[in-house]
């Protein structure tokens, strides 16, 4: 039975995510997030954990890294490297698409 409801949400970035919210959204422990921030793999957080806030971009990146680590049993650094390359590739593809050079 389909259930119909109309809901409004909040736009992430205008309301940023806390450390706990980011970890929960990625189904990981907060330690997972902290370790990757401290290793410079995720976000560019200040040294003060309490003031960390995360954007939509951080959420997408953290989820991708987490998936790569899990699927390939990859080292965090390798997952971050693959994520960097995927992000770069997406950016270049978007520019090519805008220039009418790719269709997909």
């Amino acid at each position, binding site marked *: 039975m389909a259930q119909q409801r109309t809901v409004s*949400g909040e*736009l*992430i970035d205008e309301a940023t995510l806390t450390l706990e919210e980011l970890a929960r959204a990625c*189904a990981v422990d907060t330690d997972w997030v902290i370790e990757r921030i401290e290793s410079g793999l995720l976000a560019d957080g200040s040294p003060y954990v309490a003031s960390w806030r995360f954007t939509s*971009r951080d959420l997408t990146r953290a989820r991708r890294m987490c998936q790569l680590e899990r699927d390939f049993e990859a080292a965090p650094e390798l997952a971050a490297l693959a994520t960097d390359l995927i992000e770069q590739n997406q950016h270049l593809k978007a520019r090519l698409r805008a220039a009418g050079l790719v269709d997909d």
Partner: protein
Amino acid sequence: MEFKDYYQLLGVEKTATTEEIKKAYRKLARQYHPDVSKAPDAEERMQEINEAKAVLTDPEKRLAYDQLAEQYRSGQDFQPPPDWDAGFEYSGRGFEEADFGEFSDFFANLFGQGGRSGQGRRTYQMRGEDRHAKVFIDLADAFQGASRAITLQVPEVDAQGRVVSRDHTLNVRIPRGVKEGQHIRLAGQGSPGTGGGPAGDLYLEIHFTPDARYRVEGRDVFQTVPVAPWEAALGASIETPTPSGVIKLKVPAGSQSGRRLRLKGRGIPGPEPGDLYVELEVVLPPADTDRARELYETMAHELAFDPRQRRGG
């Protein structure tokens, strides 16, 4: 519900070692990873192989599955027999709540709330998992806001204690000013909690349906507008469609093809609204009539114009 042959899904023998199973999984995961695969069913395949790996790399679950699998073939109609897993005690943390949302009914029935192993474990209170979905909207929706119906499959335990999927449809208001890749959080619309715990949140990742007319970077929008040579040379006031509707645009006299005009604050709205960049593209009228040819010839004779000289060539 169909019986799933996890060995067949991963393309391994029933005698495969855990390392061989992981190797086969990684090979397929590379092939079907949603970030690289163009296959339309990539996400579905990824879910299947994740599920197969989750069972076959856990020695206890693999043993229980193997006993059951002796009686079934892939695709055969399947109902787990009562007490099918009697005698097995699953140690460790078991599966996460998220697995039941992401994996199939078949999996959930064997190892989830429908199976014996799930009972007794769920007396504690726990918040439901957050869930994620992608939503495609038109660029114009980011200017005006929109409503979208999202249907998600939610696992639920029926009267017989089996796990079944239920369609859960939400009408979601997409706020004005949303950007590509931005998330909307719907509090309490994720997986239901356990033992009276609160539900998780639902995150919607927004993407724009590709539109050849526009290019978007953050809140800035770029578009090309064709103009006639005389409009570019003499200046003109022209009408042009933009994502927020038709606007009147002043083309400055002496414009060349490629000239970019910035319309401040006309990009995607927001606390810091983006700009709209209009690139002029001078389009030549075809010389396909005597009169048109005559006009071009007049220009050729009367205008002292050599485009190569201007470029220094």
